[in-house]
Structures are given as C-alpha cells and as structure tokens.
C-alpha cells in the first residue's frame, strides 16, 4: 500500500506493507536516527515527533501516520560544519551524550517540551524525557542539557562549562597522611550549570602553565554525529542483497534434541539457509571476550544437540526479510527429550542433581558430576588462626541476584564477504580483537581472512564483552555468500544474552577488641548458569573486591562456580565487585554496630591507604591471570568519605525529627553509606596499543584498538594525545577500532581503557613529540632539542624562535629529509591502581508496604586525574542509577520451568528520567603515578557500593537488615513483620 506523510517538512509517498511498522519504513528510507531498542514502545529510542508529539514508532503501523506530519532529528541538521541546533548544542556541551543511542529521541523529547514552554521546571523536563530510557547517563546531564537549551532558546547567554581541572599535584595525597596534614581546601566550583555537580579541588601541576586539554571538560569527539543521529552504529547500514537472520531458541531449560528437521523451513520461499547442529562444525570454545588462552571451562559450541536453558540456541535462519526468517523458524521441527533441570546454585552440587555438561569434549570443567565449573582457593596468612585469636567473630550469608545489562542497543552484527573474499564482521562489541581471534576456529577461517569493525556501540556494560552472536551470523554468510544481519530482540536480550552472576556469599570476620580486622574469610557459590563464560574471572573479582578494601593479614577466599539451567551470566559492569561489596559493606556495618563503633570511623580505621600493600592480590587475580602483588600508590578515600558525608548531610542521622514525616506517619527516613575500591585493568595482562601520524596541516590521526562503548574513551584518549602533542582536541582525529586498521587492544573491560590504552597513546604521542622536536631542531638550525617546548600548535626554542606544527609537518613530508612523523606504541602495566569511592544513600521506607524509595544518592570518587571531568562524572552518575536498579527493582526472574518472567522493559524495571532520585557526583582528584597524567579508572566503581549503602540506609530507617537483593517491597515488608 502507499501512504503519504510529511517527513521533516516534505510531503512524501511511501510504499509499505499493511503490517509494516513506522520504525521499519523510516529506517528503510535511511532515517537512521530512529533506533531499535525494543518491540513494545517502552525504551523510546525509536520515537519521533508525530504532529509534534513524541511517539514510539515500533508499536505504530506506518499506515497509522498516513496524512500526519513526522519530524525526526535529521530535521535539525543544518549541514556539515554548520552550527548545531541549540538543543543539540546543549546536549553536546553538557555531556548529555554517552553512547548516543537514545540521544536523537531525547533531543526530540526536548524539542516537544520546549515547543510548549521555554521555562520548564525540573519535573516537566524529567516528564518529557521519561519515555526515553537511557542506560548510560542517569539522566543528570540530559536534564541539564534541556535547561541549557531552554536558556539558549530564550536568548540568554549561557555560561561556559569550565570546571577547575588540570593535573593534581603528584604526591599531594601522600603528604596529607602525615600528622601535620594541611587543611584541605573546600569544595570547588561547579563543573556545569548545576550546583549539585561538584569538584573537590587540589593544587595542580604546572606543566606548561596549565594543562591545555587534560582535565578539561572537552566536548566528546563523537558528540556531533551522535546528536545528529548519523548512521554511526552497527545496524546503520544497508548492503545490497543483505539477508536477515533469526534464531530458534529452546523452550526447555534442559533437553536433548532427538530429532531436528529443517527441510520445510529451507523450502520456504525467501529462505537462503537454515543451520542446526548438524550443519556446523563442532568446535569447543568459551564465549567470553578474554585474552588468549581463554579461561576455562571451554564448554560451548556454535550449535549443539543439547540445550541447557530456555533461550539456548537451536537453529539459525537467513532469509530475505526478517518476517520470512521468523516464519521459517516456525517450520523447523524439533523433538526434545526433556531432562530434569536445576536452577538453585546449592542444589546443583548435590548428589542426584542433573548433570548439565555431560558432553565428553568440554575442556577444563572442575567437577562434571557436581556441576562445578570452577573451584577457587586463595589464602594469605592463616585465617582459621586469625579467627580463633579474634575477640569477636561474625558470620553472615548474603544472596545477590541476576540482573541484565539492558543496553538500549541490542546485540547486532552484520557479516559479509569483501572484494578480497575476506569476511567482514561489523559488530557492536567491546572486544573486536578477541572476536577476530576467537571466531576464527569456529568458522574455519584464519585470522588474516577476518576483519572486525566496531562502529559506535549503543551501550555495552560488559554484555558485549562476549562473542555472542558473531559466529552464527558468520556461519550464515559463509553458507549463503550473502551479507547477513543478525540482531537480538529485546526478549532475546533477556533469555539469550548475558547478565550478572547471582551468588551466595558467606563471610566470616574476626575482629580485635579495638576494632581492628584480624581475619576475613569469604566463600562464594556463584551461579554461572548454562555455560561457564566469565565464571572464573567474575567470581575471582568478587573475592578480590571482598578482601582488598580493608587492611587484614589473614585472608581466605574459596569458591565454587556452578552450572545451573538459567540463562548464562557473564561480564557486567563491576564484574563481581557489586556482589562482593554488598556482602562486605553490609557486614562492616553490622560489625561496627556490634562493637558500638561509628560505622564510618570503623571503616576508616581499617581501610587501606597510600603505601599499603593489598595482600590478597598476591594470591588471587582474575582467574589464572593478573596475580600481581599490588601496593596502593594513590588514595583519596578519606576525602571521598568526608566530601560525601557533607553532600548527603550525614549529621541528620542524629536528628529524630528528620526521620519522620508528620504528613505520612508510615514513612521513616534513613541514611546509609558504603566505601568501595575497584581495580584498574588486569595487571600483567591487559595491553593496548596506539598509532599516531602527523598530517600536512599539523593535525594528527590517532588509531587505537581501544573500544569506546559510550564511555567517552575516544575523547579521553584524544585528549591525552592532544596534551602530549601541544594541540587542541579538534586537531586530533581519532579512530577506533578496526582490526585491519588499528593496532591491538584487549578491549573495553576491566576499567582499563584510560589507564592502559591511554598509556599507549601517551607513549606513542611522546615518541611523535620527540620526532617533532627533531624536525624543529632541523628547521631552526639548533644543536639540540633540549629546551624546546610544544604548546598551542607551536614548537618554541629557548631563544624565542618557533615553528608551527603545520610548518613541521610540511617540512617533514615535502621539503627535506622526507619522512612521515609517526609512532606506534603499546602499553601494559604490572600495576592495577585502585580507584576509591564513598557512596551515600538517603531513603524513605514505607513501614506499611515495605516500599523503599531512594531520595538521594551521593558518590565521591577518587579516580586519580579525571582526564575529562565531564565524562568521568557522567560515568559516575550513570553507574549510580544502574546500581540503584540493581538494589531495588531489577531482577531476572523465572517460573518453575526456567522460563523468564521479565522479557521486556517495564517488567524488567530500569529507572526512567522522572523517577530517579537526586544524584550528586563528586570527583576527588589524586595523582596516580603509574597512570597517564595521573589517571586511574572510574567506569565501574559507581556500581559497587550503592546496594549496601541503600541496605544500610534501610536499616538506619527501620531497623531491619536485608541480606538478599533486591530490596523489593514485599521482602522489606516481610522483614518488618518479623521484628
């Protein structure tokens, strides 16, 4: 049928099927700003303005808008290089764009609102943004962006976004540990236009008068294309002859396929390939995107004759349309021998439990009969003796649950043969180099015949640290010779992707009379579901984080990582730390109370400081890797605690009047806190590389293998290069990551990119800088490069003469002693410097219903030097809201047969803009000597301490302690009934 509507002001006619959605029609016509995130209208990424009202297009038939007027973000584009629309400008300036996948819809939401009022309230802004889910920002900066856009549209001059920045003074924090410690300066100025975004300022190093780029809130290098909705993501491509893939999944939690017949599906017109386990080679692998050799167990094959969870792979189809592919799935006949299933991590180890991995060719399973994928043991000192000698011994068991990364962009991959008959994999992945290496044996191609391209990623959070669907798509391209596109549905994201490991954690703690920790013993049973990917390493990190924060000489960690028939967990931001920290920080609170000590005082008494060793790191790494003794070289924990306490008004704990609300007598208020430390990269293992070359005009191409999954790492890496090269950020053209064109990088995980990839960029830039000095020496007829400075695109000699970078480039490329100024460097570190943080929560507990409402979250973070304070704050704010969902609302739940009960947004509840609490992020700068310009990690630590801070706040409010997450209303209510 033909329909007509105005698209961005132009009347157009579109041919469509009666059942075709508006989203499909728009994307089919190249309106790439309209993004697919779900099929139920709940994520809002596909929303457009229909007659001025923001409306999701995945749940609208195109025919429904016949005669209407549609506006997409493309309408705001004034052309290449032209000034952005004020709303887009505000989004770019405020840092409201992280992965950028939801940004076009957010911009349109702002447009709808500001079309009605230019003086919107905070509540109106949040309501306007409420239908567009963002998993990255925590909505703090999008709200600021709308406020700023409103001011711009009112014709007001908006203030520049210029926080105090720069590089903190090296060693400053070591100095404050002495008894004659100096007074700390107070909270610094505001980074943005909002008073709640604060810095804690310190003296900065005067390297070149001041840093030009590092420490500055530069606009993200990818902001313009993202805010314009350009085709930057994996799915934003249309190849001639492209086929569409669909996957048949298991309806059973545990079953053997006794017969599979795809003949009817293959006979369906439009179907080009159907693949089952009978059609692909059986190659054992582990799907986690990790360094070679991948940690054991290796217990997966591309397609198997046995299924181990509801949602497990059964077959894949490639067809000429998504609809034909789905029809074909219905025609695949499968007979199953249904096997007993087990879901509980303790039951699965008992005699008589069904054996989940009985295949003979799996490699490295610790105990097949007991469904134990991995066993871990690590010890320092003598924990039993330590416990025996302690004045007080505490033992508590905690249960944490399974949650999903829920990036708004689903897993998406496009595969095709290029003109050299090499397989190209265009995929939304955090680990392009691992994907290339890991997929090669599965599809029978050498690495050299595979190219992996990572476009922009619409959020990953660890879920894309996995070779999840690339192998199946590649198999289909190999089978058909055609380009194939394979994208998960939102339901498949919940049933067939990865998630966070649920765990049962038991702590034993021995404490001396004076409150000194004497022994810590942690035992974990980690549920790795159907497959063991990331099982070893996530559990190891849970142990690391549980045993590293506090000084203690007797430490022990034991764990069993067990198989069950739930969908497979994997990497998820925090990577075991949120589990370990929930148990640890809940326990610390209880110990302090039992000892009648202030919980903050108790923590600070025992917490590690600069100069302290972290003993457990000598015995426990990330699995078999990363076991390197660590010493803390920078630590701002005390300042984090102090600043966070001030921001949350911690002294209200002592105010009984504050705790109650006369208008709502059933409400009790409380405050809670937790401290946390994380790691920065895997020591001795994570490696990144960078290449930098200089162009004729003095600009630089920076090629990095590091993967920006929305965190802003491209921007941070470009800032590091710019700083070293004396150039403004817009002279840096950064490109990541393409296995053909960029050097190797392990990928975006383990909070490593700024530290490791940034270290590589710094090294390469320093080499280029030396080459520039050599050329300047030649041009200025100097005897030495000593005394040369590089600043503001210019090399200056001690005598005041200078040459510009453009002069240097032209001379080197075209005039004399011709050579390309360029360098490549790689970087690895034996250090894993911990960032530190203090997290605070303010809650209201409804004593009659058990509902916990978090009204404020504060986090102060020591991440060393914040290379870009704006993106660093964005990481904290977004992480806090993700962690809030972990604490109170998000949960993967199943029925008795193992079928998922929450397969859509809404049922799986992530926070929307109009219900998040007040968020305050504080950066406490320190200088990490092993990091580029003093930097260490910030990306994952915000996940770690929110749940225990909230649980502790609930205890403060109503006196009940919750030992298992999430803190749902019924759970809290039941506990209240029991006291």
């Amino acid at each position: 049928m033909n329909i007509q509507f105005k698209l961005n002001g132009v009347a157009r006619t579109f041919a469509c099927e009666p059942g075709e959605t508006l989203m499909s029609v728009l994307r089919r016509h190249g309106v790439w700003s309209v993004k697919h995130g779900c099929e139920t209208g709940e994520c809002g990424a596909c929303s457009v303005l229909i007659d001025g009202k923001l409306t999701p297009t995945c749940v609208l038939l195109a025919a429904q808008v016949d005669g209407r007027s549609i506006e997409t973000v493309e309408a705001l584009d004034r052309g290449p290089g032209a000034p952005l629309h004020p709303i887009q400008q505000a989004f770019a300036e405020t840092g409201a764009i992280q992965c950028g996948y939801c940004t076009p819809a957010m911009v349109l939401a702002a447009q709808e609102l500001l079309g009605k009022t230019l003086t919107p309230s905070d509540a109106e802004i949040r309501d306007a943004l409420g239908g567009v889910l963002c998993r990255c920002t925590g909505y703090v900066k999008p709200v600021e962006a709308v406020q700023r856009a409103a001011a711009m549209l009112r014709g007001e001059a908006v203030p520049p976004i210029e926080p105090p920045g720069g590089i903190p003074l090296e060693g400053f924090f070591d100095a404050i540990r002495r008894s004659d410690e100096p007074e700390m300066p107070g909270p610094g100025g505001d980074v943005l236009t909002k008073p709640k975004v604060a810095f804690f300022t310190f003296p900065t190093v005067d390297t070149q008068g001041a840093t030009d780029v590092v420490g500055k809130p530069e606009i993200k290098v990818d902001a313009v294309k993202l805010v314009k909705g350009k085709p930057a993501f994996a799915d934003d491509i249309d190849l001639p002859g492209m086929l569409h893939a669909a996957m048949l999944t298991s309806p059973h939690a545990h079953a053997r396929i006794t017969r599979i017949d795809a003949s009817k599906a293959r006979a369906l017109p439009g179907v080009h390939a159907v693949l089952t386990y009978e059609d692909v080679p059986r190659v054992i692998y582990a799907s986690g995107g990790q360094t070679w050799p991948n940690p054991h167990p290796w217990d997966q094959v591309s397609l198997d004759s046995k299924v181990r969870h509801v949602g497990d792979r059964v077959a894949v189809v490639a067809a000429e349309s998504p609809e034909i592919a789905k029809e074909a799935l219905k025609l695949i006949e499968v007979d199953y021998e249904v096997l007993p299933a087990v879901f509980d991590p303790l039951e699965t180890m008992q005699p008589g439990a069904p054996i989940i991995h009985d295949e003979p060719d799996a490699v490295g399973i610790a105990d097949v009969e007991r469904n134990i994928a991995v066993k871990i043991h690590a010890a320092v000192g003598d924990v039993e003796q330590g416990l025996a000698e302690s004045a007080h011994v505490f033992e508590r068991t905690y249960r944490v649950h399974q949650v999903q990364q829920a990036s708004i962009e689903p897993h998406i991959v496009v595969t095709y043969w290029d003109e050299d008959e090499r397989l190209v994999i265009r995929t939304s992945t955090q680990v392009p180099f691992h994907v290339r290496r890991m997929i090669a044996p599965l599809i029978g191609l050498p690495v050299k015949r595979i190219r992996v391209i990572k476009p922009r990623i619409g959020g990953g959070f660890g879920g894309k640290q996995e070779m999840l669907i690339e192998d199946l798509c590649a198999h289909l391209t190999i089978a058909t010779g055609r380009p194939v596109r394979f994208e998960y549905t939102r339901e498949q994201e919940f049933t067939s992707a990865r998630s966070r490991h649920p765990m049962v954690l038991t702590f034993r703690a021995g404490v001396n009379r004076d409150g000194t920790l004497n022994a810590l013993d942690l035992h974990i049973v980690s549920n790795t579901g159907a497959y063991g990917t990331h099982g070893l390493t996530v559990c190891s990190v849970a142990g690391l984080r549980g045993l590293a924060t506090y000084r203690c000489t007797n430490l022990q960690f034991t764990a069993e990582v067990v198989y069950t028939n739930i969908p497979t967990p994997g990497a998820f931001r925090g990577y075991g730390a949120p589990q370990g920290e929930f148990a640890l920080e809940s326990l610390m609170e209880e110990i302090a109370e039992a000892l009648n000590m202030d919980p903050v005082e108790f923590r600070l008494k025992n917490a590690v400081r600069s100069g302290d060793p972290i003993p457990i790191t000598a015995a426990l790494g990330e699995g078999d890797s990363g076991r390197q003794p660590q010493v803390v070289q920078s630590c701002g924990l005390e300042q984090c605690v102090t600043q966070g306490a001030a921001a949350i008004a911690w002294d209200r704990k002592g105010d009984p009047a504050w705790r109650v609300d006369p208008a709502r007598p059933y409400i009790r208020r409380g405050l809670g806190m937790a401290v946390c430390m994380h790691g920065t990269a895997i020591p001795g293992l994570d490696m990144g590389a960078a290449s930098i070359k200089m162009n004729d005009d003095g600009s630089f191409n920076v090629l990095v293998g590091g993967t920006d999954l929305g965190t802003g790492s491209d921007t941070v890496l470009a800032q590091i290069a710019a700083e070293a090269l004396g150039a403004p950020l817009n002279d840096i053209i950064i490109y990541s990551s393409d296995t053909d064109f960029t050097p190797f990088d392990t990928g975006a995980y383990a909070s490593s990119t700024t530290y490791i990839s940034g270290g590589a960029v710094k090294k390469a830039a320093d080499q280029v800088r030396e080459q520039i000095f050599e050329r300047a020496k030649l041009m200025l007829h100097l005897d030495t490069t000593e005394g040369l400075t590089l600043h503001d695109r210019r090399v200056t000699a001690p005598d005041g003469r200078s040459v510009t970078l453009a002069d240097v480039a032209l001379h080197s490329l075209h005039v004399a002693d011709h050579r390309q100024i360029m360098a490549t460097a790689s970087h690895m570190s034996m250090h894993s410097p911990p960032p530190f943080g203090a997290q605070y929560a303010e809650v209201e507990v409804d004593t009659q219903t058990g509902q916990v409402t978090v009204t404020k979250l504060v986090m102060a973070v020591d991440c060393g030097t914040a290379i870009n304070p704006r993106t660093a704050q964005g990481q904290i704010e977004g992480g806090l809201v993700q962690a809030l969902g972990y604490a109170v609302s998000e949960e993967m739940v199943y029925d008795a047969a193992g079928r998922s009960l929450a397969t859509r947004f809404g049922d799986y509840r992530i926070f929307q803009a109009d219900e998040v609490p007040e968020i305050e992020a504080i950066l406490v700068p320190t200088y990490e000597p092993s990091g580029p310009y003093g930097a260490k990690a910030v990306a994952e630590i915000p996940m770690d301490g929110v749940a225990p801070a909230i649980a502790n706040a609930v205890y403060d409010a109503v006196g009940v302690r919750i030992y298992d997450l999430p803190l749902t209303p019924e759970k809290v209510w039941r506990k209240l009934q029991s006291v």
Partner: protein
Amino acid sequence: MPAHIHEYQRAPTVEQALTLLERETIETAPLTPRPRVPDDGFPSAAAVVDLQALPWDYISREPATLRIGGNTRLQTLVENAAVRNVANGVLAEAATLAAPRTLRNLATLAGALDGVADGPPELMLALLALDAQVTVQGSAISVIALRDFKPLPKTLLMEIAIDVGVDASAALARVARTKLDQAIVAAVGAVAGQTVRVAVAGASELPFVVETRVDAPSAAVIDRLVAAVNSQAAPVGDYRGSVDYRRQMAEVLAHRALTAAFAKGASA
C-alpha cells in the same frame, strides 16, 4: 514487523468500523493503543481497523458531567484543566501513572481500559471510584456503569462520563518497586456526597470497587469498606507480590486512600 497483518483500514465512521469488525471472511481487530503495549505489539488478527478518524477525541465539561471520548490520548487527560479539576486531580494523576510521556502520547482512554487486565490500573481505579459510566457502541449504543463493563469483540468504547455535579474528593495509594513502576497493588478512594467508594487493583484478577454510605464517622466507614475489600480480594501472586502480600496491601492501601480522600474532603 507484524507480518501477520495483511490489511489495514482506517474507518471514517463508526458504522464502517463496525462493519469491518463484523466481517467473517477475515479476522479483524480494532487498533486501540494501550499504555502497556501487548508483548506482540499488535493485535493477532489479520486485519486491523484504525479508529483514529472517529470523532471520539474530546473532553466536554457539562454542568454536572464530564465526558471524555474513547480516543482521547492519555497525555491529554494529564494536561486538560477540566480533568485536573476532578476529584483533587486524581484522574490526571492516574493518567500520569499509566505510562511515560511517549506512550501517553500514543495510548487512548479506550486502550487504557481495554488493556487493564495486564496494564497500569490507576486510571480504571479512579474511574471506578468516581462511578463512571461508559458508552459502548456495538450493534446498538448502550450506557452502562464502568464497573459492569467488559471489553467485548465487535464493540467499541465511545465515551466515559463522570458525574461532577457533586464535588468529590479522592486519593490514590499504591505500592510498586519504583515510583512509576506498574503498581503491585493500588487503590483509589473517593468520597462523593454521602457515598464513598474504594477501587482496588492487584488484589484480584481484575480491579474491583466497593462502596457504602457515609452513615457513620469516617473511621468506621473506612473500616467497613476495608473489610469489604478484604472479603472481595482474591489475589493472584506473581514475582512482584505474593498472594498474601497482595491481600495485606489491599487492606493497607484501601485504608490509606480512603483516609486521604476523607481528609481532602474535610479540608475542602
């Protein structure tokens, strides 16, 4: 993309809409956008009838009656002054809770009531508590109490009417995992003249309403209604709330909503 939909019709009149829906040659369903879109996104029928051209997108304030057309978008309910003035704004509050802005721009009043079995209940509760009347177009037009309304095939919800001749006071109470999450249990209490009602969702398969006369001090009236809620509750448990919890919450929230409604009435 819902490939099973082979025919789309936009009905210009009610008669044509009903004619299309009554066809026996092809299964046909109306498009009534809901705040909680079904898992499959669209009706399972092979043909769909779009009702947007029907003249049912209106809000009409008469001296004693507020009339709202079935095609009225939920966001319109949120913004409309006449709606906001009804019963302490409980209708607008309920519409706000139905969905985020994007889906409120799409979903209609009729869709919200059609989809109440697994959708957000507050709007239905508010209307039940205010004793709304519903006009249904089938083979004939019928006007029935909303409490007796059940969506039927080949019928269309034309209008909701609320008696505003007597100032009502009302209040909403709910429990959910988050502030705007779909309620586990919710209740709306309303006091209109000498009649008091409380509507409850999450404590039985479908929302229900109980009412009584204000013939005693408010505390006694509330206790009586809460007891009635308890006796009528037949909860179905799920992962968000067990049977026992839902039953308990029905009492708590009914009591809370009624107490607040009486208090608002008293302060007015």
